[in-house]
């Protein structure tokens, strides 16, 4: 439309130049000012288009995808899920909302997998500790969310292959060294300060443990591949899962929490049974 305007204006200008009246000269001055303005806008537009095209030619592939909006179908579905369930705390551009949720740019698919697959996200309410609960999204939806987050900022990705391929005993040493101080000897979990807690690993699957080490959810530190190599991570997972599946040779495990539950059993079962026993003897003799 502006282009057709300018063509019509040019024609009119040529016509009026022939008239040669002062009023027409003033009109021509005004028109040329308009023309300069129009030329500036056209130039700016051309420069912008050139920059955009040049950027898309030079920038990384995924950014190019984004710019020319060729999202994969998974990313689109993920964005839809995000807009429905996550946007209120993490913001319209994954930038986070202060006092509600952190930015998700760069957290990567590992973090998404851990948080969503363990049911921690979407959050029920803001509190010290997000507890594990049944997942809201199914596996296909989680993959879509992972694709969307991964597409917008990248970050740690999920591993593949056998996640228990490691040295069992070394895994045990690494677990006691790096993990037991919060998660307990056997991964039973433990309390942290102010209502926070290191969760039990009882329900965690291999991939969740791996993703947690990569992404460092909540109070957990990140164990990047420089801190624990992928082989060491697999060893740790092997140890944790082996311990979980291992029977208790001594009888009932009573939570494997050590002296607290043992003391409880002694006082409730042991002393209780004996008090009953001697009371019985006392009434019978």
């Amino acid at each position, binding site marked *: 439309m502006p282009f057709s305007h300018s063509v019509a204006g040019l024609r009119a200008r040529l016509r009026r130049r022939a008239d040669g009246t002062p009023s027409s000269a003033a009109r021509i001055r005004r028109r040329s000012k308009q023309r300069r303005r129009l030329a500036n806008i056209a130039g700016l537009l051309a420069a912008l288009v050139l920059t955009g095209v040049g950027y898309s030619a030079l920038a990384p592939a995924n950014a190019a995808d984004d710019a020319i909006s060729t999202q994969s179908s998974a990313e689109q579905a993920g964005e839809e899920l995000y807009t429905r369930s996550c946007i209120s705390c993490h913001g319209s551009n994954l930038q986070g909302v202060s006092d509600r949720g952190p930015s998700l740019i760069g957290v990567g698919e590992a973090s998404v997998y851990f948080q969503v697959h363990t049911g921690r996200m979407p959050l029920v309410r803001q509190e*010290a500790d997000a*507890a594990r609960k049944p997942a809201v999204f199914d596996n296909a939806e989680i993959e879509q969310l992972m694709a969307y987050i991964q597409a917008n900022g990248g970050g740690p990705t999920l591993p593949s292959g056998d996640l228990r391929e490691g*040295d*069992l*005993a070394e895994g*045990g*040493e690494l677990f*006691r*060294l790096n993990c*037991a*101080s*919060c*998660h*307990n*000897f*056997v991964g*039973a*979990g*433990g*309390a*942290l*300060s*102010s*209502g926070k*807690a*290191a969760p039990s690993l009882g329900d965690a699957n291999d991939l969740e443990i791996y993703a947690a080490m990569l992404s460092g959810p909540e109070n957990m530190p990140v164990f990047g591949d420089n801190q624990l190599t992928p082989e060491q991570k697999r060893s740790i997972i092997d*140890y944790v899962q*082996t*311990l979980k599946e*291992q029977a*208790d*040779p*001594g*009888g*009932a*495990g*009573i939570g*494997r*929490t*050590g*002296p*607290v539950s*043992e*003391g409880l*059993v*002694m*006082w409730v*079962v*042991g*002393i209780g*049974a*004996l*008090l009953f*026993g*001697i009371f019985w*003897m*006392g*009434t*019978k*003799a």
Partner: protein
Amino acid sequence: MATAVAPGQPATKIGKAATEIDERLIVAGPLRRTLNKVFPDHWSFLLGEIALYSFVILLLSGTYLTFFFDASMAEVPYQGSYAPLRGVEMSQAYESTLALSFDVRGGLFIRQIHHWAALLFVASIVVHLLRIFFTGAFRKPRETNWGIGVVLLVLALLMGVTGYSMPDDLLSGTGLRIISAILLSIPVIGTWAHWAVFDGDYVGDAIIGRFYIVHVLIIPAIILALIAVHLLLLIKQKHTQFPGPGRTEHNVVGNRLFPAFAGKATALFFIVFGLCAALGGLVQINPIWLWGPYNPAQVSAGSQPDWYIGFLDGSTRLMPAWDINLPGNYTIPALFWPTVVVAGAMFTVLALYPQLERKLTGDTASHHLLQRPRDVPVRTSVGVMALTFYGVLWMSGGNDVIADKFDISLNAMTWVGRIGMVVLPPVAYMISYRICLGLQRHDREVLEHGIETGVIRRLPSGEFIEVHQPLGPVDEHGHGQLTYAGAPVPKKMNQVGGARRAVKGFFSPIEQPSQVELASQQERRGLAAAEADEPVGSGRPSEGGRPSEGGRPQDPRD
């Protein structure tokens, strides 16, 4: 002195053999006297026996464990049958404990029996101590035995700590680190004490071996000797008894050592052994293979001591981290107060309690009759107060586990403990004091007005009254004449007549209740002359109030 009257020549072979032995060793007299000792009968008098029997179980199971345990701190790579630790460097102590758990026949079972029996040993000592305390059994002349009991409790705790530390696993090593810190926190002598115990800096290579010899030889020997003195004093001073019909400060009513008491004691031994075996076989305790070998760089969440040290862990968690910095680069660490001072004060007060009470009450007489807790409200309330304090510390020792399992903030748990240990004991004192007074008054009321029968009668005037059953003769106002004599007062109609002995029969009665009544009446007539000047209370079978069982009460002779 009861000299055995020669009953004539023995006819049987056993009798002849016994005579031969007696002619050489002269044991018949003392043996007869011992076997004829009368022990009073009450269920709560068996609590100390539980401790004794669990100690016997500890000796037996512990001896088996010493065959396989190697108290060495030399590092070896594990090559045993537990796969998740294979190849890990560990001390020989830990390695041998793993071996005796997995590669020795019955090893794990015996180890678990040993550990459960250890928990039971201390627990039964504590329950026994509570019974002694709340019934006033520690009063003159038994202060010495009370003191020995407190020493035995402390030794049992030391026994537990050394035994807990010996496997050298990650859990016990964490405890050992705390023991080391407690030693270091003692002003002036701390460093030297630590050096003396650990033979150098923490952890060194001597401590497991030292704990081992302390655990299997020194403390058990002292405990055995003290138990012997404890029991000899008990026999010498005679067991206390609850007040009841026919029971006085000068007699003991109960069963003879042989056969009745010996039978019960044997039965109880098997019950205790059975319980330990059941727990040892069915419930896993201290699975050291899950904890891993000790490594000072590692520590696990939820590391706890065994229950009997939990109160010290709790006091440490509740104590603010107040280091006292003295001039001259000298510090009294915050850890000193909740461990050395609190434990020292608690056990000192406990050991000196009989003397304290004697000073405060001015009661210097000898007492052989026990008191019902309600009749001594101050002592009972002080005891409940102390128990509440202990309970708050104890609970706080596991506050991280409680916080984790019940989704409570750990900080909130700490403050609950801090405020609770100050506020709750006085509250407990006041509540138990009121309960004691209420129970006392109810006893007096029943003695005065009789038992509420639940029968409502309407008088000609239209007034409704509840019929009360007097317990004895009444005066012209219908008020009972019986005075309270420290024995349980029947509060329900079906407790009336409970003073007679129980009907025989284990699962079902094997004699007619009417015959028992008749027999007990006859016995009472026979006794009447002997005890005419003694106050007569009443007794319930559930409280062991059976005056006539076990023969006549005897004057203390031996």
